[in-house]
């Protein structure tokens, strides 16, 4: 019985040595793992999608492959409602290899602006929950998660219409100029047009104006919306106050009417 017991003892010792060696190699491999995050890229597609691409560089110089790597991001608004969710999955990152992973997040501009004017006219902070995980050395599934805020720049920040100024266009029509200004705080250039309907106090449509704009990101716009209104005493007196219905149209989103009173 001595021999089998000794063999069992030796086998146990060998298994322990293997396990300790494995742990030492795993610890050494963690030291040789390199994760780097590249510069995020933003783009707006014509179909109304805002694309956010985050490049991840993983240099696996360790002794073990990384398996089932995943990255998940959830964007939510201040109330906690989910705006967008994106997942990236890489089955294997072999050892000794340098891998670049592109994590793409798509935000639907239409659905974002449907949630409220706040994203169109006011800068905001979106909450982002990031979860990344992998299976290290086959037996150590690990997960890291964090939360941070993502600054959202409003494309029509501080949008304002000034007081209309009345002038004469011709013998039958008068010219009404409405000053219009905003700042494009968004991470994309803003191209499109703004249609404004001018209503008098009796809710009658006095005129309509279309203004095309091309405002690069982080720059401001100042201009006038021009209207031609019929010249008669009744209409002029009624036009001293009223409201404007503003419609925004860009390749990325449509929004309107935004009702702004004047007078």
């Amino acid at each position, binding site marked *: *019985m*001595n021999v*089998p*017991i000794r063999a*069992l*003892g030796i*086998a*146990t010792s060998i*298994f*322990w040595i293997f*396990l300790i060696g494995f742990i030492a190699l795993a*610890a050494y491999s963690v030291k040789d793992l390199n994760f780097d995050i590249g510069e995020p890229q933003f783009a707006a597609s014509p179909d109304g999608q805002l694309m956010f691409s985050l490049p991840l560089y993983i240099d696996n110089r360790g002794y073990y492959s990384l398996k089932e790597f995943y990255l998940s991001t959830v964007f939510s608004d201040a109330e906690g409602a989910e705006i967008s969710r994106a997942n990236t999955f890489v089955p294997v990152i072999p050892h000794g290899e340098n891998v670049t992973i592109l994590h793409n997040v798509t935000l639907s501009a239409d659905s974002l602006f449907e949630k409220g004017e706040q994203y169109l006219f006011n800068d905001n902070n979106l909450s982002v929950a990031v979860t990344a995980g992998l299976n290290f050395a*086959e*037996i*150590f*599934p*690990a*997960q*890291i*998660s*964090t*939360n*941070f805020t993502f600054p959202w720049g409003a494309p029509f920040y501080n949008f304002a219409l000034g007081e209309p100024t009345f002038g004469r266009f011709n013998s039958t029509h008068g010219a009404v100029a409405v000053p219009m200004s905003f700042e494009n705080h968004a991470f994309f250039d803003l191209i499109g047009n703004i249609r404004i309907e001018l209503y008098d106090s009796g809710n009658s449509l006095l005129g309509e104006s279309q203004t095309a704009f091309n405002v690069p990101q982080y720059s401001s716009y100042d201009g006038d919306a021009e209207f031609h209104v019929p010249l008669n005493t009744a209409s002029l007196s009624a036009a001293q106050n009223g409201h404007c219905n503003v419609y925004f149209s860009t390749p990325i989103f449509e929004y309107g009417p935004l009702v702004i009173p004047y007078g």
Partner: protein
Amino acid sequence: MAEQQKKNKNLVRDISFRVAKAAVKAILVYLLYFLVAPMLAPLFGLIPGLLESIEVFVAVYIVLMILGDLTAKTVFQYFFGTARALFFMAYLLLSMGDSVFSTSYENFSLTVNLTIFYTIMVLLSLLGFATTILQAINFMHEKAEASSNLQL
């Protein structure tokens, strides 16, 4: 008389050898702990109570190992060997909790699932436990066989 003196001399030599062996093994284990502990230093900050827990584990393990070596060639050696294996398993089972290691740093949270790793360790401990039990049975069997041979 001379034989008694020789027997006593052998006993003293045997005990001295056991003490020396126990001391050397204890020093080696403590040296291993002394060398490995600084490598785990970053973890001590993240996991409160880890250092104290490891210190208690090393202390109890060394005491049981010394007692096992001092009582070598007696059945108590196997008692202490079994106690050491059981203590190791109990320590693992108590420290593993739900087998998920979680820690937070600023607003980052790290979770590592150690179920498979702990399972392997517990299985190896069970193997060690089985070995000491078998050794104890074998020791008792040999002792019984020796006494029955003397009776014959």
